[in-house]
């Protein structure tokens, strides 16, 4: 079985002695611009049976990559936030509005939104991600075209809005009307798929902090999305990353914006409850 080829190290229980990183010792704290301290390690939420602590993906990267996220200028993802700011002020659509013309309080109006998304939306009758809310505004209120789920204007805008909540702990609701989707997401997370016959859990729960060839496996948390990946030098959305992961297992991925990915996004977000929203993170 392919899964057994993954190398195992010391048990997860020895959290205190866990040394992240490769050959050099990594920074132990993420402070952005010498001002904002991120929570990169937190006790696992009650619903997590197999984890005691949760760790931001930042912990698993090399020193050089970690350094890129500690300064908003050095962070290559922030240039897209600049572009989103320009977009925020641009009038688009038949209603003749820009984001700015309606949201008179600026992007600051969205402080506290990113940590609670995705969420059950009563009006829509389903789980809504940030991309859904942005497109709802664009199509219904601005009378402009919807953006594709992962096109650069969309990821940049999710970064701009997410930035207002940087530092705040992720806190998605998993019960009440959201519970059905949450249960679906959990099922997807633990179901083996694809030619390689692996589930999310096989890597990100059973084998995080080990090396898979030359990749240092993280817990697969999404508190840092949208992520600037060194690999493609741009911001990446959550659903796009899910899709990429599924393709790596040689499974047919669910569609971005699908019910399945909404459910998975809710479940995976809840695994990171307690970790800080990181705005535009930098990953490999």
């Amino acid at each position, binding site marked *: 079985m392919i899964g057994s080829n993954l*190398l195992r*190290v010391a048990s997860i229980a020895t959290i205190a002695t866990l040394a992240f990183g*490769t*050959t*050099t010792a990594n920074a132990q704290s993420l402070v952005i611009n010498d001002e904002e301290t991120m929570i990169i390690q937190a006790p696992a939420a009650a619903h997590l049976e197999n984890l005691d602590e949760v760790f931001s993906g930042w912990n698993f*990267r*090399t*020193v*050089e*990559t970690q*350094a*890129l996220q500690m300064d908003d200028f050095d962070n*290559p993802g922030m240039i897209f936030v600049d572009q989103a700011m320009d977009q925020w002020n641009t009038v688009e659509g038949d209603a003749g509005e820009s984001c700015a013309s309606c949201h008179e309080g600026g992007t600051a109006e969205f402080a506290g939104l990113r940590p609670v998304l995705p969420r059950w939306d009563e009006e829509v009758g389903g789980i809504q991600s940030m991309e859904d809310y942005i497109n709802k505004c664009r199509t219904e209120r601005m009378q402009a075209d919807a953006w594709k789920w992962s096109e650069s204007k969309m990821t940049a805008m999710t970064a701009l809005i997410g930035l207002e909540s940087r530092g705040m702990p992720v806190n998605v609701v998993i019960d009440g009307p959201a519970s059905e989707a949450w249960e679906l997401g959990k099922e997807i997370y633990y179901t083996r798929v694809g030619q390689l016959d692996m589930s999310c859990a096989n890597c990100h729960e059973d084998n995080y*902090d*080990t*090396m*898979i*060839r*030359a*990749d240092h*496996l993280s817990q697969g948390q999404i508190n840092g999305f949208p992520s600037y*990946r*060194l*690999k*493609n*030098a741009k911001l990446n959305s959550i659903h796009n990353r899910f899709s*990429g*992961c599924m*393709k*790596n*297992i040689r499974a047919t991925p669910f569609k971005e914006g699908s019910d399945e990915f909404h459910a998975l996004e809710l479940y995976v977000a809840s695994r990171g409850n307690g970790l800080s929203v990181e705005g535009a993170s930098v990953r*490999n």
Partner: protein
Amino acid sequence: MDFTRRDALILGAGAATVALLPVQAFASASDDAIAAFTGGAATSEGGIELTAPEIAENGNTVPVAVSAPGAVSVILLAAGNPNPDVCTFNFGPLSGSQSASTRIRLAGTQSVVAVAKMADGSFVQTSSVVKVTIGGCGG
């Protein structure tokens, strides 16, 4: 088998190095580039520092820095890239120090070479091997 994480990493990096084309295949291209920069003059060691990671998280974006106090210009070369030219820093009268940082692309594990032309016309050179690994899932 009882591998520690460290063993696995060294094994992985070693395998990746062996799997790649030998650096010698491209050495002449970077030697040519150095000769073009120095006009054929010999280079010596010392007086130039190159900072590059030992292992690059991703070959697409590798942060490097070079410092050569008193240099007029510094050339960066990637000896194992299809084209070894990376960039040339020319320091003007108002440069605060003859140092610069940037981010480069490396096609695979290789030597990154820095050559500085000093104010007195002499040349100094240094290099650093950067391991560029293939990711786990290819994703």
